[in-house]
């Protein structure tokens, strides 16, 4: 099943290239992504949430014993795979009309991306993971460079070289780990106790890669450039899924494989997260370009993920997963919201808009919903995630929680101000007033995203259920690694996080 989910989009990409005809290529791509979504839902339906073990495992020794084609999912990978599969058809739809140039190549790049995303989250062999993780650079480089904006060449280089530099150090760490543990199997490496003195170095090497991918301050600077220059669908997939590979890396590798180093170095992550959430929120306030503003807000939201993950307790880690999923939906939706009006007026400058509630009321409603979700209003997915992460961080460090909570307020400031400038005010610009409201295709993208945001916000239990066991075993792994040196982790007495009642 998982192999098929990786090979099918690759085959579809080749078919699309071979067809060479834009209209048919679009249909093939859309059909493929929908089939994959259905397969993903099938995976979810057949998933057993009562265990932390990997499921749907497959193993083929086709690489001559160096490493193996070994796939499987646990709750954490399942959730992220579902997120990728959910966003992909929407990305294809988002570029349906706005991309008219070299359409088959464009769709093929997206289909390959989809295969690689599934591969990253499903790989159970660490070298296979690295292969998928790095391979994503090539299609993304092409997407930004061919279909991007004015400074696309600069942005594509920056994206590629930044992330490559982060990853190569991780590769060396991976090779050392394989030699030490004698296995490339992720499950075996997660159970292996690496020597404590080596863990720090390994942790830092992995951190170099995931912090860039995430991205964390101060290595976030590639992100605004890449986002601003990428086409709408490229930004959607970049913010929606690619950033999550960093968070997935922390939760799959850094924390369980180097628990002692994690506890020793959590202060570093906390410090960077605190700086990120305040600094990038302030930077976001000052942006004149809508996409750049949302890009900086992504960095701030990812700081919640790192803060929650390294709180190293159940609500923190579960909350970080929910923030990742929520941000995947919300940032993709916000980038699409920008894309909708960009397609009409061909500018991303905030000052060029205003009063959109007047001529585009339906659009304004959706934009409002996603703005609120980004602010973490109760009832939206953002609230569940930020509430849980803050609760987790509070359990570990009060000062961290206080600073991060400031980020929520600043987030409200820049998002509401953005919305006010774009949607409210006088509709005094003639070209803005002439913009038509949502088209059916745009409805088809907005509605699923809005439904997802609300569903997670109102009833997050189905999302949290598969996470419960893997997170529990992760926390148990941390406890087994010994009490943290500083003793900052205290058990948190909380209501069952699988059943929060945010609305009561």
């Amino acid at each position, binding site marked *: 099943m998982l192999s098929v989910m990786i090979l099918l989009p690759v085959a579809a990409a080749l078919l699309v290239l071979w067809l060479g005809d834009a209209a048919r290529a679009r249909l093939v791509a859309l059909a493929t992504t929908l089939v994959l979504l259905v397969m993903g839902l099938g995976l979810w339906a057949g998933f057993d949430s009562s265990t932390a073990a990997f499921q749907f495992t497959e193993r083929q020794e*086709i*690489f*001559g*014993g*160096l490493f193996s084609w070994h796939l499987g999912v646990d709750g954490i990978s399942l959730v992220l795979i579902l997120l990728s599969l959910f966003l992909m058809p929407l990305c294809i739809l988002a570029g349906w009309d706005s991309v008219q140039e070299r359409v088959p190549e464009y769709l093929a790049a997206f289909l390959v991306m989809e295969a690689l995303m599934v591969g990253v989250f499903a790989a159970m062999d660490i*070298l296979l993971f*690295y*292969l*998928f993780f*790095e*391979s994503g*650079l*090539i299609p993304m*480089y*092409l997407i930004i*460079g*061919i279909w991007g904006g004015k400074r*696309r*060449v600069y942005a*594509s*280089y920056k994206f*590629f*070289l930044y992330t*490559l*530099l982060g990853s*190569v*150090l991780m*590769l*060396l760490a991976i*090779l*050392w780990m*394989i*030699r030490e543990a004698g296995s490339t199997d992720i499950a075996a490496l997660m159970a292996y106790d690496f020597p404590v003195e080596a863990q720090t170095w390994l942790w830092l090497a992995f951190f170099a890669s995931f912090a860039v991918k995430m991205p964390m301050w101060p290595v976030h600077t590639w992100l605004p450039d890449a986002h601003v220059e990428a086409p709408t669908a490229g930004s959607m997939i970049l913010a929606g899924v690619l950033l999550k590979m960093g968070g997935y890396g922390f939760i799959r590798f850094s924390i369980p494989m180097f628990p002692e180093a994690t506890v020793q170095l959590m202060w570093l992550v906390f410090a960077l997260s605190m700086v990120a959430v305040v600094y990038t929120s302030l930077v976001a306030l000052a942006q004149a370009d809508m996409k750049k503003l949302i890009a900086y807000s992504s960095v701030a939201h990812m700081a919640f993920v790192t803060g929650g993950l390294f709180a190293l307790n159940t609500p923190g880690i579960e909350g970080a997963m929910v923030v990742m999923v929520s941000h995947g939906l919300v940032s993709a939706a916000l980038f699409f919201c920008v894309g909708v009006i960009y397609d009409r007026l061909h500018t991303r400058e905030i000052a060029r808009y205003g009063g959109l509630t007047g001529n585009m009321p339906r659009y304004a409603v959706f934009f409002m919903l996603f703005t609120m979700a980004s602010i973490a209003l109760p009832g939206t997915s953002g609230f569940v995630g930020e509430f849980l992460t803050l609760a987790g961080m509070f359990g570990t460090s009060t000062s961290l929680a206080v600073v991060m909570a400031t980020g929520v307020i600043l987030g409200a400031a820049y998002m509401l101000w953005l919305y006010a400038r774009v949607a409210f005010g006088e509709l005094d610009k003639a070209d803005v007033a002439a913009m038509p409201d949502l088209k059916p295709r745009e409805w088809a993208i907005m509605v699923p995203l809005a439904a997802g945001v609300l569903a997670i916000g109102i009833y997050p239990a189905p999302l949290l259920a598969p996470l419960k066991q893997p997170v529990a075993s992760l926390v148990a792994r941390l406890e087994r690694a010994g009490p943290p040196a500083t003793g900052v982790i205290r058990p948190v007495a909380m209501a069952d996080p699988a059943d929060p009642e945010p609305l009561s």
Partner: protein
Amino acid sequence: MSLLQSVAVGASEVILASGICLLLLVGAFRGDRALEGLSWAAVLLLAVAAVPLFDQGPGGASAWGGLYVADSLSRYLKLLILLGSAAAILVAVPFLRRARIARFEYPVLILLATLGMAVMVSARSLLSLYVGLELMSLSAYVLAAFHRDDARSSEAGLKYFALGALASGLMLYGISLTYGFTGSTSFEAIRVAFAPGAERNLGALFGLVFILAALAFKVSAVPFHMWTPDVYEGAPTPVAAFFGTAPKVAAMGLMLRVLLDPFGGMKADWQQIIIFISIASMALGAVGAIAQTNVKRLLAYSAITNIGFVLIGLAAGSDAGVAAVLFYLLVYLVMTLGAFVCLLMLVDSEGRQREDLADLAGLARTRPGLAAGLAIFMLSLAGIPPLFGFMPKLAVLNAAIDANLWPLAVIGVIASVVAAYYYLRVVKLLYFDQPAIELIVAPGEQGVNPLVLGAAAAFSSPLGYLLLGPLSAFGAEAARALP
């Protein structure tokens, strides 16, 4: 050992040598018209020469009074060399016709160089080593100047010859020093004399350094790389393709054998030298390529960077390191060959060969297949996963980490990021930019070249991973031939 037994052990070389005489005679009588036929005959000859390699036993068989050895290492390297030479002959004919240098000597000279390389990698004495090396080099000098009416080609030939002669001199000086301090040119005797713990003389170390310098010249490792960009640029493109493939494999294979067999006991001495030239090659190759405007010069710097990576495996000096080097050479040969074939097919509407980087702009719009192939080779040479070029880099890094050569591994990966920049620049030109010139499908370029290009591209693409099992077994077997 009788002469007949020696002939049987060295059957490949005997076949090659007699075939070369025959082809030379045919060429002399039939003239340049025979180029096409001679090329195919040469490829056939190379295929026939490969046959005896397959039924050699697993162990090493010595012949010609201990000058020559046929073992799994020489077999592996010879198969690569024969493959590279055959490809260099096959892809050249349309180019030679376009450049009006379709002379029958081309396949014959390549065959002579191939014979030299075969002797080199089977050498078991410093003398047979030198004879093989010189046969290869002399043929290569002539090949570099093959376009004799072209000033750049003549310059390349002369430059290659002058510097090559210097390297040969260094080599001979090193050989004489080694002979002076050990009393023998046989690898076995030298190994015994230089065994760890045996009393050694500073002069012997000098011998090692001189031999090493000459070998570094042949693989174009820094600081003996200066000839590479000029010769690549000046030599006719198929000749440059040849220089970039088979001779690199042969010289690197020879380096493996010389350092690990006769000088194996002096590993502590040569390891530092190899680490230094490895770092220097990776760094200089990566930085030097950035400013290039000519694709051939770019590929020359790419060769320097990649040789630096190959040397990481040699610096490790372990079985895993040797296997990684051998695997790297195979993948590198295919990728480089593919890149040069792309370049060969770059012909503008006036029938002129284009080789400037700027000429690649927008190729994805005008020649999508060619552009896709070149992009695959570039990204594969850069070692970006999922292309197959990633695997040999992984193998050498793995060997370095096994040997605890951390600084080398870290500098290696950082150099690969710097190098990624210029490979990406080619992809950027191919895919992001607008076409600048009009290209045509030149006459004669529809036949063999697209086939070679397609096969090389498939190998360099993720499909190559399916061959990992057999290839690594083959390489590991070859690595076991060294003590």
